[in-house]
């Protein structure tokens, strides 16, 4: 078998002081990257130990995240080898599912916009510009 590319451990952004538990941050990031196709099927994930050491966090929280992702079918466990992104995941991330993953960020944005008395068209304009003018 040819060797698959490996995602470097520093690719993950983990913030221990956040209100979102570390395992949840990791699960969300992997789900987003897989849904968007940034992580292609077959890509190897860094080992639990590597991620834990680089970020100085408890390895248990990393294995918890990987186990959850495996349970959801996003990752695949390989005997004696690194975990990999499971095949055929991209197609399963429907538009609705991907939008749902963005909901917490959208809620926060909507709230901030209301406080600033901005309306939907003001926001849409900014989003269009930031995301590269696709309409």
């Amino acid at each position, binding site marked *: 078998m040819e060797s698959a590319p490996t995602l470097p451990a520093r690719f993950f952004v983990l913030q221990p002081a956040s209100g979102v538990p570390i395992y*949840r941050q990791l699960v969300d990031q992997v789900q987003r990257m897989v849904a968007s196709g940034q992580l292609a099927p077959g890509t190897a994930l860094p080992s639990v130990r590597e991620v834990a050491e680089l970020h100085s966090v408890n390895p*248990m929280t990393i294995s918890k995240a990987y186990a959850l992702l495996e349970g959801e079918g996003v990752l695949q466990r390989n005997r004696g080898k690194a975990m990999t992104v499971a095949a055929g995941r991209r197609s399963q991330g429907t538009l609705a599912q991907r939008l749902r993953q963005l909901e917490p960020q959208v809620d926060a944005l909507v709230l901030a916009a209301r406080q600033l008395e901005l309306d939907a068209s003001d926001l849409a304009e900014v989003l269009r510009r930031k995301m590269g003018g696709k309409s």
Partner: protein
Amino acid sequence: MSQPVLSARGLGKVIKGRTILKDVCVEEHRGSVIGVIGRNGAGKTTLLDILLGFSPPTSGESKVFGHDSLALPATVKGRIGFVPQQDELIPMITGAQHLALHSSLHPRWNGDLVDRLARAWEVPLDRPVQVLSVGERQKLSSLLALGHDPELLVLDEPAASLDPLARRRFLQELLEISSDRTRTVLFSTHIVSDLERVADRIWILREGALAWSGELDTLKESVVRLQVRARRALPPGLALPHALTQQVRETWASALVSQWSPGEVQSLRDSLDAEVEVQNLGLEDLFVELHA
């Protein structure tokens, strides 16, 4: 389930009429990294001392590896490593001499581990303890507690005097030590950020009582702050479910609630006809809110 490594029931301590601890109940199993947080004087040191049998409780009982804390057999004591807040080093002799002394007392001394840690933590072993800094003494006393490969490691404010870099290295070693899931680590700290990195379980002590104990992830997910902005004035008797603290002013309410699950937000929005924002709080904020 396996025998708990540590357990306590109804633990209380009164010193000269002052209540230091009240009704502490805990049970911890092998492989956990448990962080104890509390303000100064919340009873952290007293609790650790009682659990290890250094001082008797006024009420209740505690056990280590199934044995009463006050009657631990020598074999059980040999499975425990303890780093007190005030070290008990001998000022006139060097670190190396301390290590030699301890290794002669313990048949199972792990010289390789000690050598590796001494290098990783940059502990000066060739100078008498009296010329070492507080941080260096702290590291040396941790080395001495780890040398006999304890199954239960208890540390009272182990990292308080270390600079951020040394603290990070120290924590990494703690994680390394606990990573095979056969050892248990219990440590007290004021430094909330350390705890968030390494602990999987926490005890929050507040005025001698256990305000919360359990998994850190569960705490962060189930205790949240709700910010409510209604279109009309909220009912004066509004009681948000499982609110620990709550403030209501006309169309606005803010509450800290427990037992939260994300599915509840929509029904709350509907029933209150309001915008409801859910804020997950970091441990520092949770700690402050739980003391409000």
